[in-house]
C-alpha cells in the first residue's frame, strides 16, 4: 500500500492533489494537465457532486494505468443520467449503457468479447451507483465475482437512490432520512442493525481484489485504481461519494464530508486480496461522528432542541466498531 505519507517534507505534498515541488512520479493523475477528464465539463450533475468527482478520479486513473485502453459499462443511475442525456455525452472514453441491473453482466460480456478478439490490452470497467450495485444489479455482480470475470466493478456510493428523488437503498445508513421512502418504524430512516456491506460481501467471493476509497483521499483512491488495473480477474472498488442534494449538505462541503466519514471511522478505507484484508488507511485526525452528521439535513432530526442521544451513540458505536475491526487508529 502506497501510503501518501511517504512523500515527506514537501509543505503539503503529502495530502494535496499535487504540488509544484513534487517530481513527476510523485504527482497524482488529477494534478496533471494531460489527465483524460474522462467525465468532461458540461455534465448535468448538481453543484458539488461527489459522484462526478469520484467517477473522474477513478476513470482518469484507470486510463493512465492502462495506457488509455479502457471500456466503461455504466448502470442506470445519476452518473448515467447526468452524463449522457441523448444525444450528448460527457464521457471521453468508450462507454456503454444498458440497463439498471445488468452492468456487471454486460461488462462480463465485453470482457469475453475482448478475449474472443484476442485483445488482452483493453480493460473493462463496470460502474454504477449504490442502488444499481447493492440492490438492483446485485445478482449480476455476484455472478461476475463468482465467475472471476476480468472486470473492475466500481460502485459510487452516495447511500441512496438520488436520481429518483432520494429513496433508500440497501446502502443507506441507519437513521438517515430519505425523501420518498416511508420510515421503517416510528423514526425516519433505516433501522439499525441490518444493511448491506457490499465490500465485505465481495470479499466473501474471494475475488482477487476488493478495496474502499473516498473522494477525500485522492492519492489513496488513485493508488487503488492503479493496483486494481494491474490485477486480472474480478475486482471491486467501493468509492464513497457524498451527495449534496440527497444528504442536504452544502455543495462546498462534499469533500469535507467524505473526509469526516473516514476520520470518524464510519467509512473505513481498506484493501483486501482473495478475501483477506491486506491494508488499511489509518485515521489521521480522529473526529466524533457528530462532526460528520451535523453537516447533513438527513440527520437533522437527531439534533435540534432535544438531541437523540441514543441514536447518536448507536452511530458512534458503529464507527468505533469499524475502528476496532480494521485497526484504523495506530
Amino acid at each position, binding site marked *: 500500500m502506497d501510503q501518501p505519507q511517504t512523500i515527506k517534507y514537501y509543505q503539503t505534498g503529502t495530502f494535496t492533489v499535487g504540488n509544484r515541488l513534487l517530481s513527476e512520479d510523485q504527482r497524482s493523475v488529477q494534478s496533471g494537465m494531460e489527465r483524460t477528464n474522462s467525465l468532461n465539463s*458540461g455534465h448535468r450533475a448538481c453543484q458539488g457532486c461527489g459522484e462526478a468527482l469520484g467517477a473522474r478520479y477513478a476513470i482518469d486513473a484507470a486510463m493512465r494505468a492502462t495506457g488509455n485502453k479502457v471500456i466503461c459499462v455504466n448502470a442506470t443511475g445519476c452518473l448515467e443520467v447526468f452524463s449522457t442525456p441523448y444525444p450528448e455525452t460527457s464521457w471521453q472514453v468508450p462507454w456503454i449503457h444498458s440497463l439498471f441491473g445488468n452492468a456487471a453482466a454486460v461488462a462480463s460480456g465485453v470482457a469475453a468479447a475482448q478475449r474472443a478478439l484476442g485483445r488482452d490490452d483493453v480493460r473493462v470497467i463496470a460502474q454504477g451507483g449504490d442502488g444499481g450495485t447493492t440492490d438492483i444489479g446485485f445478482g449480476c455482480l455476484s455472478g461476475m465475482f463468482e465467475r472471476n470475470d476480468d472486470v473492475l466493478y466500481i460502485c459510487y456510493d452516495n447511500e441512496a437512490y438520488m436520481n429518483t428523488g432520494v429513496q433508500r437503498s440497501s446502502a443507506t445508513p441507519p437513521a438517515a432520512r430519505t425523501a420518498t421512502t416511508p420510515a421503517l418504524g416510528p423514526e425516519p430512516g433505516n433501522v439499525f442493525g441490518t444493511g448491506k456491506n457490499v465490500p465485505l460481501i465481495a470479499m466473501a467471493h474471494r475475488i482477487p481484489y476488493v478495496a474502499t476509497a473516498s473522494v477525500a483521499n485522492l492519492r489513496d483512491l488513485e493508488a487503488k485504481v492503479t493496483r486494481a488495473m494491474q490485477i486480472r480477474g474480478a475486482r471491486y472498488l467501493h468509492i464513497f461519494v457524498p451527495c449534496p442534494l440527497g444528504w442536504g449538505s452544502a455543495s462546498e462541503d462534499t469533500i469535507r464530508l467524505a473526509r469526516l466519514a473516514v476520520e470518524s471511522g464510519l467509512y473505513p478505507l481498506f484493501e483486501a486480496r482473495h478475501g483477506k484484508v491486506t491494508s488499511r488507511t489509518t485515521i489521521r485526525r480522529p473526529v466524533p461522528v457528530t462532526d460528520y452528521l451535523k453537516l447533513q439535513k438527513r440527520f437533522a432530526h437527531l439534533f435540534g432542541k432535544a438531541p437523540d442521544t441514543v441514536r447518536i451513540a448507536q452511530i458512534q458505536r458503529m464507527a468505533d466498531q469499524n475502528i476496532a475491526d480494521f485497526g484504523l487508529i495506530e
Partner: protein
Amino acid sequence: MDKPFAITLDPGSSLANKTGAWRTLRPLYVDRLPPCNHACPAGENIQGWLFHAESGDYEQAWRVLVEDNPLPAIMGRVCYHPCETSCNRGQLDEAVGINSVERFLGDEAIKRGWAFVPPSAESGKRVLVVGAGPSGLSAAYHLRRLGHAVTIKEAGPLAGGMMRFGIPKYRLPRDVLDAEVARIVAMGVKLEVNAKVANIADTMAAGGFDAAFLAVGAHIGKRAFIPAGEAARILDAVSVLRDMEGEEKPLLGRRVVVYGGGNTALDVARTAKRMGATEAIIVYRRTREKMPAHESELQEALEEGVLVKWLTTIRKVTDGGSLIVEKMVLDAKGFPQPTGETEELQADSLVLALGQDVDLALLEGVPGLEVKDGVVQVRANMMTGAPGIFAGGDMVPSERTVTVAVGHGKKAARHIDAWLNGTTYSPRPKHELAGIDKMNTWYYADAPKTVRPQIELARRTDTFDEVVHGLDETNALFEARRCLSCGNCFECDNCYGVCPDNAVIKLGPGKRFEFNLDYCKGCGICVSECPCGAIKMVPEPT
C-alpha cells in the same frame, strides 16, 4: 447522413451545455496578507521569499527578501521575530522558523558573494543620512536603489551603530555585520566614519544635500540617582557594551550587579559572565511577566547562570562597595511599591541599564523641529517639522529594535523619494489578512520545527563565540517548506483536482490557475478545499 438504426440526432459533447449559467456565486483567486508579513516591522514579504526558498532557489529567495531589508544575516541573528509569534502554523504545531531561514539566506549570500544590483539611472538628487546604524543603512540602501546619491555620515569609527556598539558579539559576529555593510557601500553609498554632524542645517548646506534622514541612535545611558560613596563603581550599560568594541575592555570585577530589565540589561549581564565575573545579578523592580526583555534572551541568560532578583530596587551604594536593595511589591496597577524591607548585596560594580537617550545636539537651531520626551516628532511620512529633514530609528517615538529601525529606513526612503520628486508616496492598500479561519489546514503534513543548535553551555559563558548556530541547506529547506503560504497560491493543484466540473484551468508552472466560467457551477468546493485560503466566493455580477 446515414445514421445507425433508431438514431435520429447527431451525437454531441456535453461541452455544448454551458452549466456555468447555474451559478449564483463565483470563485475568485485572491492574495491575502499572511500574518508574518503583517507583523514584520521591516515590512518583509516573508511568505514571498519562503516561496522561493521552498524550491531551493535560495538566491531568488534572498533577492525577494532584500527588496525590503538589506540586512538578512543580521536580522537572522538579532531580530525578535514577531513574524514567528503571529505565524499561523503556531496554531497547528509550531511556528515556522522564519528567522532561521532568514539567517541561512543571509549567510548564503555572504558565502556566495551575492551583490545588490546598482540603480539603473541616477536621479541627480543628493541625500544625507546621519548615522550608520540599522535605520540609516536601510534608508541609504533604499534611497540608492531609487537612484539617489547617498552619503552616510557616522560619528563613530565604524558603521553599524547599536548593532556594533550595543549588541554583543556572541549574538552578532562582527564579520557578518561588516559583510552586510560592505554590500550596501558597494552599491555606491558613500560612507564617512568619524564624521559627527554637529549641526544638520550647516552640514546640508555645505554638502548641497536635497534632503536628510536622521538616524542617530540612543547612545546615552540614562542615569538614576543612587546615593553612593566615593569608591562606588557605577557604570552605564551602553558605555560598557561600547567599550567592549575598543582596545580597553571595561573592568567589571567578579561580582557584577546590573540594574534594569530590558534586553540591554541581559546583554551586559551575559557579557560580564564572559568577562570572567563569577556572579552576574540583574536587579529588576518588577516581575518576570513585566520584564520588557525578550523571553528568548532571558532564557539564554538564565541558562548561562545569570541571576535575577525580581521585585527589587537599589537604594544606595555603601562606601564599602556593597548595595542596599529593597524588596518591592506590585500594586493593583502593576507598579512596584516599596516595602521598606532591605538587604545588602555585595558588588564590585553596578551597571545601570535603565534606558537610553538620544544626543539631539545636531538639531539645534533648526526651525520647525519638535522634540518631545527626548525624541524627535515625525509625521506619518517620517518627516520632521523641518521640510526635507526626515528621521527614524531610536530618535523617533517607537519600539527600539533593529527591525523597527530597518523598517523606518525603508519607509522614510520611500517618502524622501516622493518628496524629492515633488509628490507624495501612498502605499498600496493592504490585502485582507489571511487568518487561519480562511485556511484548510488538513492538507498540511505534520512536521515539527527544526531547532537551531546552540553551542554547549559549558563553553558559552567563557567565549564570545556565537551562541546560536544556523541551519544547513537540508534543514533550512525543510523549515522553509513548513510554511503554509497563508493566503497566497503555492500551486498545490487542489482547486484543479477537486472541481467536479473540470472548470479550473491549470496554466502551468508559476502561472497558477484560472476558472472556466462557462462550466463553473459555483459549488465552492475549490474554496473550502484550498489549503491556503487563496480563493473566495463572490456574488455573481448582475
